[in-house]
C-alpha cells in the first residue's frame, strides 16, 4: 500500500530524513514515535506530498510521488490527514468543514454530502455540534470534526500527525477512542504519536525515529517493556515516567 524507498530530505544543510525505508501493508496501523525534531512529522507529511523530499521515492498503491505525471491532488483524495492543531476552517461550520471537499472535489450534491457528514459526525460522537463554528468547539470536538472531515473523502489511508499533542489531557481519550475505532474497522493508518496506550492497543508496527533515522522497529509489544536500542529505552523512560 505504502512503500517508502531510500527517502532523504534536507532543510538547507540539515538532514531531516536520512535514508528512510519502510513498507506499510493495507489494513495495517503503524505508529511512529520519537523525540521532537526526529523527523517523524516531516515523514508523515511526505507521504501525501505536502512536503517534498530530495532523494528516494514513495509509492502509494503503485503510484510514485516522484513521477512527474502523478497528479498529487488526485492522489491526496485517497489519503486523509489529521493535524496536530486541527486546522479546521474557522470561517465555516463543522458541517461545512466536512462537506467542502466532497462537494467541490467529488462533485457530490450538497444534500448527499450533508447526509454523509451527519453520519460521520454521529460516528465521532458529536452530531449535535454540526452547526457550530470551530471557535465554539472544544479541542477534542474540533479534532473529531477534523477526523470526520478527512473521512468524508472515503480515504484508503489515514495519516495522523500528533493528533492529541495539542489537547488538554481530559480530551485525549475521546479522540483516541475514535482512532481506535477506526483502526479496528480496518483502516490503513500511519500515526505519529506519543500515546503509547494507543500504540499498545492497535499498532501492528511501531517505528522509533531519532535524528531523521529509523532507529528501531517492532511488531510486538516487547518494544514497550524491552526496547532493543539504548536510544529508545531512554526515550520511553522519559515519556512513560
Amino acid at each position: 500500500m505504502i512503500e517508502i524507498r531510500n527517502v532523504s530530505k534536507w532543510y538547507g544543510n540539515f538532514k531531516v530524513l536520512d535514508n528512510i525505508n519502510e513498507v506499510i501493508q493495507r489494513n495495517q496501523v503503524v505508529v511512529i514515535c520519537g523525540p521532537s525534531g526526529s523527523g517523524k512529522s516531516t515523514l508523515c507529511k511526505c507521504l501525501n506530498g505536502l512536503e517534498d523530499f530530495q532523494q528516494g521515492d514513495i509509492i502509494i498503491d503503485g503510484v510514485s510521488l516522484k513521477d512527474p505525471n502523478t497528479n498529487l491532488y488526485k492522489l491526496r483524495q485517497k489519503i486523509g490527514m489529521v493535524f496536530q492543531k486541527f486546522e479546521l476552517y474557522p470561517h465555516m461550520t463543522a458541517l461545512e468543514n466536512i462537506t467542502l471537499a466532497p462537494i467541490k472535489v467529488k462533485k457530490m450534491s450538497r444534500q448527499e454530502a450533508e447526509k454523509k457528514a451527519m453520519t460521520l459526525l454521529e460516528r465521532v460522537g458529536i452530531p449535535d455540534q454540526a452547526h457550530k463554528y470551530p471557535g465554539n468547539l472544544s479541542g477534542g470536538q474540533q479534532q473529531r470534526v477534523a477526523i470526520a472531515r478527512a473521512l468524508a473523502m472515503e480515504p484508503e489511508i489515514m495519516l495522523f500527525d500528533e493528533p492529541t499533542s495539542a489537547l488538554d489531557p481530559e480530551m485525549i481519550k475521546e479522540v483516541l477512542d475514535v482512532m481506535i475505532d477506526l483502526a479496528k474497522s480496518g483502516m490503513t493508518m500511519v500515526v505519529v504519536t506519543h500515546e503509547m496506550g494507543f500504540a499498545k492497543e492497535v499498532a501492528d508496527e511501531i517505528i522509533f525515529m531519532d535524528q531523521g533515522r529509523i532507529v528501531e522497529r517492532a511488531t510486538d509489544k516487547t518494544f514497550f517493556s524491552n526496547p532493543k536500542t539504548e536510544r529508545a529505552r531512554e526515550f520511553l523512560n522519559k515519556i512513560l515516567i
Partner: protein
Amino acid sequence: MAIFDYKVILDNLPFLMRGLITTFQLALIGISGGLALGILVGMARLSSRPYIYYPATLFVNFLRSIPLILVIFWFYFLVPIIAGRPLGDFLSASVAFIVFEASYFAEIIRAGIQSIPKGQMQAALSTGLDYKQTMRYIIIPQALRNMIPSLLTQSVIIFQDTSLAYVIGLKEFLRSASVVDAREVRSLELYTFVGIVYFIFCFTMSYFTKKWEAKKGMAR
C-alpha cells in the same frame, strides 16, 4: 458683502454635486478595479514561479515608488496612444487609479494571505482540493476578513486621492469648486465647503473602520 457667504454654495449646489458624484464614481471604480487587479497581483507576488513573481513584484515596486499625479498624467497621454483615439479624462483617470491602487491593494492582499497559517493550506490540500480551490474557499475568505481594516483605510485614501485627477481637467468635486471659484471669486467659502464634505465622508469611514477593528479585537 458678508465675510462668509454661503449663498454661493447653495446657488451652485447642483453643479458641485455633479462634481461630487464624479468623485464618487472615480473612487468606486478605483476601489473595485484596483481591488480586483490587486488580488491577482498580490497572489502573483506569492507565486513560486519566477515568470509570475518577478513581473508582479516589478509592477508593485515601480508603482509604489512614483507619485500618483505622475501616473495620472502618464495614462492621460498613454491611453489614447494604445487605444488609437482619445478616450476622455474620466476613462484615462479610471485606468490610472485602477493600476496605481492595485499596487497598494496587492501588498495588503499579499500580507493578508501570508497571515493565514500554513496549516490551513495543508489541511485543504490534504482533502484533495487543488491550489485554486484552496485559495478560493479557504485562504482568501479568511485573508479578506483580516484585511478589511486595511482595505477600508486604503479606500478612504483613494477617495481623497481622486482630487488629483483635477490635473487632467476632470471635473471631479475639487475641480468643480475651482471652476465655480473662477467665476464667483469665493475661494474661502468654496474650498471650506469642499474640505468639510471630504472630512465628513473620510471621518465617518475611518470611524467605522476603527469600530470594526475594535470588534474584531474583542472577538479574539
